């Protein structure tokens, strides 16, 4: 376990490079701005340097193009819109946003991004924005989205075919089955909301499995495409679940990593049994987000964002 940074801050989002195993790079959205972090040299580099900002630009959302290795495209969601860089963070362009400027909370490129160039942004008061042209033009698409406070988003691995994505909001979960152009509430009990985190099984088209992490009521699982939900390990996750990461092994077994404010746990049997990972959290600080650059699997690294701006690096426990 290594401590990477020391200044007081807040880590909102971590986006590891698709080539993390080789380059060890990830991009981090923080209260103090947007940074390129080298997990090997432990160097932090201000990715907004070229903008010469007078003040720190809070960056709650980060996304890399799924083909980042080739196109070097990065998206940074800020208070005021989405910035786009096509040269790995050296220069930035502000996407053309509808007025008034939104506060971006989450960014989510289509798994089919190389072909469809579609990227979604969730916002604090403006619902979902959709860009069909790699982040140049953005349009609000909120038909049926009664709650415009988007806290988290998830997208189907089979998006190219099923055009399905979900948003978690203050009052529940909404689903779109037409590429984010209209929304319907999912049958998620509204008294369990707000929903802070969502995850979709990598084998969703077959197993129809979804996970939802709530602010006050723990982790929930649906195995029938959101028609019904059941609580997962109430004793492990009694309160806030702020990150859920899901991977599948070759046999389709689900590997999960779930972060609460104070603990990070992994499961290698779709949530039936859990192992707590040792995280040396600074006093009075908590976990804000987690990324799994190589997926959730035994021995693979996990990057843990802390509420004071640090990133801690650890590895997922083995099966035993």
């Amino acid at each position, binding site marked *: 376990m290594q401590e990477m940074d020391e200044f007081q801050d807040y880590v909102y989002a971590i986006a590891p490079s698709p080539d993390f195993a080789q380059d060890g790079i990830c991009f981090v959205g923080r209260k103090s701005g947007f940074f390129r972090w080298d997990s090997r040299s432990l160097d932090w580099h201000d990715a907004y340097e070229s903008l010469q900002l007078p003040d720190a630009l809070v960056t709650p959302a980060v996304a890399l193009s799924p083909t980042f290795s080739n196109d070097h495209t990065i998206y940074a969601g800020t208070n005021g819109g989405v910035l786009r860089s096509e040269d790995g963070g050296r220069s930035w362009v502000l996407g053309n946003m509808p007025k008034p400027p939104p506060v971006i909370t989450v960014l989510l490129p289509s798994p089919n991004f190389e072909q469809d160039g579609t990227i979604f942004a969730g916002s604090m008061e403006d619902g979902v924005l959709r860009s069909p042209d790699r982040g140049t033009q953005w349009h609000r698409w909120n038909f049926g989205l*009664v709650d415009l406070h988007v806290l988290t988003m998830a997208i189907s691995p089979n998006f190219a075919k099923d055009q399905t994505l979900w948003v978690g909001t203050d009052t529940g979960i909404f689903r779109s089955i037409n590429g984010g152009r*209209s929304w319907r509430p999912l049958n998620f009990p509204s008294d369990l909301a707000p929903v802070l985190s969502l995850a979709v099984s990598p084998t969703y088209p077959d197993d129809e499995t979804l996970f939802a992490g709530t602010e006050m009521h723990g982790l929930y699982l649906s195995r029938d495409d959101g028609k019904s939900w059941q609580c997962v390990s109430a004793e492990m996750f009694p309160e806030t679940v702020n990150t859920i990461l899901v991977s599948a092994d070759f046999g389709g077994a689900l590997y999960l990593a779930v972060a609460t404010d104070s603990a990070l746990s992994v499961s290698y049997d779709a949530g039936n049994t859990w192992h707590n990972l040792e995280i040396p959290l600074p006093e009075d600080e908590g976990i804000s987000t987690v990324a799994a650059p190589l997926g959730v699997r035994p021995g693979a690294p996990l990057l843990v964002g802390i509420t004071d701006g640090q990133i801690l690096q650890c590895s997922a426990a083995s099966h035993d």
Partner: protein
Amino acid sequence: MVGRAPIPKPDLRKPRVVFNPIAYRGFQRGVNLIAEAVRPTLGPLPRKVAVARSALSLPPEMLDNGALIARRIQELPRRNEDMGAMFLRHVLWRLQDDVGDGTATAAVLFQSLYNQSLRYIVAGGSPIALRRAFEEAIPLIRSELDAMTLQVQGATQLAQLAESICHDHELATILGEIHDIIGEYGQLDIRDGRRHEIDREYVEGTYWNSGVLSPDMITDHSTLRVDLQDAAILISDLAMKEPHELVPVLEAVRRAGIRALMITVDEMSPSVRGLLLANRRPGTLDLAAVRTPDSRRIEGRMVMEDMAALTGGRPLIHDAGETLNNFSLERLGYARLIWADKTKFGIIGGKGDPRALQAHVNNLKEAFARARDVDERKRLRERIGRLLGGSAVLWVGGLGPSHIEARKSLAIYASDTLRGILREGVVPGGGTALLDCVPRLRARFEQASDADERAAYRILAQAFEAPMRTIVTNAGYDASEVLAEVKLAGRGHGFDVRSGRVVYMAEGGILDSAAVQKAIVTDVISAAGLALTIEVLVQRKDPPVAHHKAAGS
């Protein structure tokens, strides 16, 4: 030159009371006349019905819409027949109003039920018992239709269904896309297009047809509208006549640091407007006012309720005795953007409590499900659509004004049906859904011991074959041969009259609206049962011609 055959004129001066069996026979002739006029239009290969126009110099209307054909038949010369015809016409027109489709199927089904039942009654059966058995069969049939209902989703499926309704590929494709986005409740304005093509536009948020009170309030002269960002809204239906009434409001708003305010009012005097304009400080305090939509009607209260749910405001209501003296900052609603032009104003990103908004939408949906009145349902649907946050405009182009009008009518008709499909799903089309109810009806026939009940289920089973028989016959095939083949193929199968083959209808994309089929079953069986219990026809001295013409035209 041979003119038209003279039409026997009813002697309207004499009141008449007609008893059975004469009443039955006359009534039946009227029913059959309407049904036979509509029958050729059933199915995807309909035949046309030519209807003479009131001006003899004009060519006849060529119609294939059952409801419209029935509507054109406004009076029959023989008064007993006229009553039968108008009875069925009313059933068909009400069905059209309720669900927008299914009138030809309904006519054929009604005719079969009525004629078979009449034969049974004349032979000694009890009309009351028959009616009771019919009524009892309705839930059974509806549950059978529920069991075969499939949900529809996606623009492609919706477009396919729209095309089967309107037979216009371009229109159907766009309607499929629109309803995939706006769903069953969304607001859709259908307007005349400027070009030959059909086009659509999606409007973010919600809007009402009510514009700024003064052109001077428009600040963006390129778009000719005023945009208030992160604005507060004072919702009211008050008449603001004296400037001093508004001063405390503006003071409170300024003190609270609010940078934009929209006011909705029933009326604003020129001096109050002047005060509002004089107090505008671009970027510091933007101000505008619009007339509250429908403020002088009961609908105005509903609009204010909806605006309040969207924005979290609490309206100031004139009828509740409220004035601007009741204003406090807590009465204000808020939205990300409030815009207005000369004729409309809209709200994007209302900041009301989403839970309260969802509860309000759910209440309206429940009211919609309960409502029977067509206008009431339309009003509720529009309100729900507005609250769900978006609307679409369909621009219908064509080769000329009459072509555009015809396409617009088709668009309305197809759109209404698609809404029903989205709400209640689809069942196998081409008469298959009703045919697939027959085994259940036959099973009940076998179980029943009472003669009248047995007769009712036998009659229903036979009548439920009639729509498919008619579709097949209209397309030029032998109905008996085809029906035998379909029954052999099993449940879910039907006859695709375009390919001339028996197919599994769901796979072939031949589907009907479940809402329409359920409405047909409910309305027609109830109406047929009622018609069977008619014992006496009472004819007025002066039939209210104007009334029934007005109702249908």
